[in-house]
């Protein structure tokens, strides 16, 4: 009973958004209660802390709980509040870990090929405590910059690191800072783009929720390098939790004197304002974002002039993505050489991806640039759910494209993905298998971009609507000969004639699915068949004679009365009445209902 004497035991509970959704808060409360109950009862002689940390990435196994006992750390997965008591009893008090709840090999495989720079601290420190960040070296970057480096040194350090923007376009960050620094002007601004509007993306949110101080420090260093004393974080209001943490972090930094005037006794001062966005995808586009901060409707404008010359309130402005800025302190602390040693020749460092779709292990991953798609999907992701066949991976969200199985071995970097018709983008990665219809996938993304178009320019506002209509009719079996060519023509015209990145990339999902899965489009249009059996209007349901036992389950399930048949005799589906809901397919125990 006394063997834990004087040792410090720490229980860490993941409360990123994924962790919270899985019940992280309840798990904390359970641990708190169990620990305090026991402490009173048994009067143990060890200190036990529970600690909140940000997202650990492996959302499929939430809630994750670490028990750190001295230098030994064990991790539990899929923890529910009611499991807390047993862990406290057997592990914390008894010293015997609850084996069957510990993480398994998959968990290790999930982490083996990752390279964690940003997410490392994200999952281990308490994001609501500035000291936790300072303990792992936080704010030493800005200290170093202010005491040892002049702004030009900082810029050349960032340039040497090879860091490129993580917001989508991959523009070299050091170069952006340099141009802004050289633009004359007394007032300059640093904007952190935390709008993160891509469906399914949550990299930026996790970083702000898990390690907000790294973003603040990154912005300060950017401010020093560029000659700006004022920063804005433009963050969507749908991220209330991230906003709260960010505000807390900013106020803590203020209390410490890390933000404000004469930081660390230098002449440099910096302050940060938080601006909430109303959740328009297009407000992630830099000129629209600036308009939005200025209080206007978030509509992009033509570039040039670029924000580095003419940005917020007409002043030179650097806009960087959350992940880009979060990399900065680590580069300054560990040196450009170190950062440049990770990745490929033209794409340096690591990239955070939101791995979702039909892979076994979904979650947030951080990988070195240049890793292959196969490694991500099979080693980290653990392969396809149900060991079905991999079909394609969609990268870059609505601006990206689908990459087919033949190309699984290409490295993940800016150039390689662009070459095959997709993009790295902000880091969405959706894995598709044989049960996904590519026409339908294209339609899904077009539905999104169409609804999010700002409406300013014709090709995007009306053109994407027409693309969507054509895709819609193809999935409904009303496709016509020539539709594929029309889609391609309209897509390339929209790309060429649109004003901003949204319209210029919106047709990418259409073009890349046609490029690699043309036969699927043809099957929809010519044969009126959906090979993946997704498009409802193209399916026909029928009963397979040799399997039907005449049990009548389908007949009872059919909401439209399309099925007839006597007990113990072969049943039949009348295709004219069938509404293709699939109820019979679901209920038949003998797999006697077929569809094609």
């Amino acid at each position, binding site marked *: 009973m006394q063997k834990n004497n004087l040792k410090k035991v720490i229980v860490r509970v993941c409360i990123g958004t994924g962790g919270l959704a899985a019940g992280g808060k309840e798990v904390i409360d359970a641990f708190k209660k169990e620990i305090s109950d026991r402490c009173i009862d048994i009067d143990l002689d060890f200190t036990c802390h529970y600690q909140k940390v940000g997202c650990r990435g492996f959302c499929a196994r939430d809630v994750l709980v670490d028990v750190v006992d001295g230098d030994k750390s064990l991790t539990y997965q899929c923890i529910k509040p009611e499991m807390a008591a047993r862990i406290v009893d057997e592990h914390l008090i008894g010293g015997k870990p609850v084996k069957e709840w510990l993480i398994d090999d998959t968990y290790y495989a999930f982490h083996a090929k990752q390279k964690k720079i940003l997410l490392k601290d994200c999952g281990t420190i308490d994001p609501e405590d500035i000291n936790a960040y300072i303990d792992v070296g936080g704010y030493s970057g800005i200290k170093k910059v202010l005491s040892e480096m002049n702004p030009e040194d900082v810029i050349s350090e960032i340039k040497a690191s090879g860091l490129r923007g993580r917001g989508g376009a991959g523009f070299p960050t050091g170069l952006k800072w340099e141009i802004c620094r050289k633009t004359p002007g007394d007032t300059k601004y640093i904007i952190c783009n935390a709008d993160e509007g891509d469906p399914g993306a949550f990299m930026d949110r996790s970083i702000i929720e898990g390690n907000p101080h790294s973003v603040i420090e990154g912005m300060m260093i950017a401010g020093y390098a560029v000659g700006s004393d004022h920063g804005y974080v433009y963050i969507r209001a749908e991220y209330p939790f991230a906003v709260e943490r960010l505000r807390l972090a900013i106020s803590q930094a203020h209390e410490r004197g890390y933000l404000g005037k004469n930081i660390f006794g230098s002449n440099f001062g910096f302050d940060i304002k938080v601006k909430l966005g109303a959740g328009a995808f297009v407000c992630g586009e830099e000129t629209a974002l600036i308009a939005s901060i200025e209080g206007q*409707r978030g509509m992009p404008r033509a570039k040039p002039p670029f924000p580095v010359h003419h940005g917020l309130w007409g002043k030179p402005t650097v806009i960087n993505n959350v992940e880009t800025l979060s990399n900065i302190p680590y580069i300054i602390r560990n040196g450009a050489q170190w950062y440049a040693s990770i990745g490929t020749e033209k794409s340096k460092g690591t990239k955070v991806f939101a791995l979702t779709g039909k892979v076994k292990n979904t979650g947030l991953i951080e990988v070195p640039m240049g890793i292959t798609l196969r490694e991500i999907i099979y080693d980290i992701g653990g392969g396809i759910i149900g060991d079905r066949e991999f079909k394609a991976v969609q990268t870059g969200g609505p601006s990206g494209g689908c990459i087919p199985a033949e190309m699984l071995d290409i490295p993940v970097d800016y150039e390689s993905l662009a070459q095959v018709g997709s993009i790295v983008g902000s880091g969405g990665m959706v894995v598709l298998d044989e049960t996904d219809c590519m026409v339908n996938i294209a339609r899904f993304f077009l539905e999104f971009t169409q609804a999010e178009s*700002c409406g*300013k320019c014709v*090709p995007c506002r009306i*053109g994407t609507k027409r693309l969507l209509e054509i895709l819609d009719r193809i999935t409904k079996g009303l496709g016509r000969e020539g539709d594929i060519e029309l889609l391609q023509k309209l897509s390339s015209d929209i790309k060429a004639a649109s004003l901003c990145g949204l319209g210029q990339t919106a047709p990418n999902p259409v073009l890349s699915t046609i490029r690699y899965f043309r036969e699927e489009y043809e099957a929809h249009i010519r044969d009126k068949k959906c090979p993946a059996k997704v498009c409802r209007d193209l399916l026909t349901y029928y009963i397979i004679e040799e399997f039907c036992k005449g049990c009548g389950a389908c007949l009872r399930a059919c909401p439209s009365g399309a099925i007839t048949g006597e007990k113990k005799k072969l049943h039949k589906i009348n295709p004219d009445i069938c509404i293709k809901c699939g109820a019979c397919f679901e209920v038949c125990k003998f797999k006697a209902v077929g569809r094609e």
Partner: protein
Amino acid sequence: MFKVTIDGKTIEVQEGTTVLDAAKMLDIPIPTLCHHPKLTPFGGCRLCIVEIKGIPRPVTSCTTPVSDGMEVTTSNPYIEDLRKTVLELILSDHPNDCMVCEKAGDCTLQELAYFYGIRENRFEGERRIYTKRDGNPFIERDLEKCIMCGRCVKVCDEVEGVGAIDFGYRGFSSKICTPFGKDLNCEFCGQCVAVCPTGALTGKMWKQKGRQKDIKEIETTCPYCGCGCSLTLHVRRNEVIKITSREDTLNEGWLCVKGRFSYSFINSPDRLTKPLIRIAPKDQSNPPLPPFVKGGRGGINNSLLVTRYSSLFREASWDEAVDYIAKRLKTLKDKYGPDAIAGLSSARCTNEENYLFQKFMRAGIGTNNIDHCARY
């Protein structure tokens, strides 16, 4: 000065000139819909795209400033093809009812469709349908015809300083909105109507009054105030059916609600065209005034007027009326002194007229009792 070559022709222009303006100086036509020379560039319609050597993608000439040595191509099969796609897309979401459209014959969209020979449309599809009619008294807002060029929004903000309308919603459903979607309630200066390139904004009182070809345009000066804005009266069969103003005038084509829309008095039967002299003595006269009857022209039922006033006044010639006034003023002045008389002038008069009037009061009548709705 920057040297720029457009379609092989070279010109020197000031720094900051846009490619579109430089092309205009060279008399090279570039189609536009959202551009307006008096408003900040928008770059939304995408028709003015051109190719610039060294820039990989086509750019809009209205937003791109020239740089030294720039080489521009304004037209080639690729660009014209893109323009055609854009026009087809616009027309695929347009009522295309030019037969009955107020703007036909004077519509930029119609003209472009004509020049690009657009008959079939590859992109036919859903069209925006708005059934609600704006209940304001002056401006017909037929938003199904709106091409979202943003000119109205900008003129209202940048020229009029009112900001009564703005973009709302997103994607295909984006449209020009009034606050809370209520009926337009603004200055009604009609600047937005003047700049709208399509039939989306027209004057309510123009409806079915006549096509441009039947119209005689007469230049005149607005009688309403001392600003003296230039007006172009659109006259058909001796009736003013619309008023506009040209951009090359002192007022640069901008007008106010009175100048643009308040012309129904011209042909109103209520309008006094001859002087009237009172015939009935004042004290015993005035029968109680009948209440204004709504619905007649100018808001007053005409038949009532005739019967009421014909017993009180008689028509006179200008000479007789002026003589009469002079005589009466003199009598009053002799009897009560000049300070018994006061003069009130109007901002509608020109400076010259107002000067003359105060001179008349001071030197002619001999009083300083002279004022003006905007003060002397």
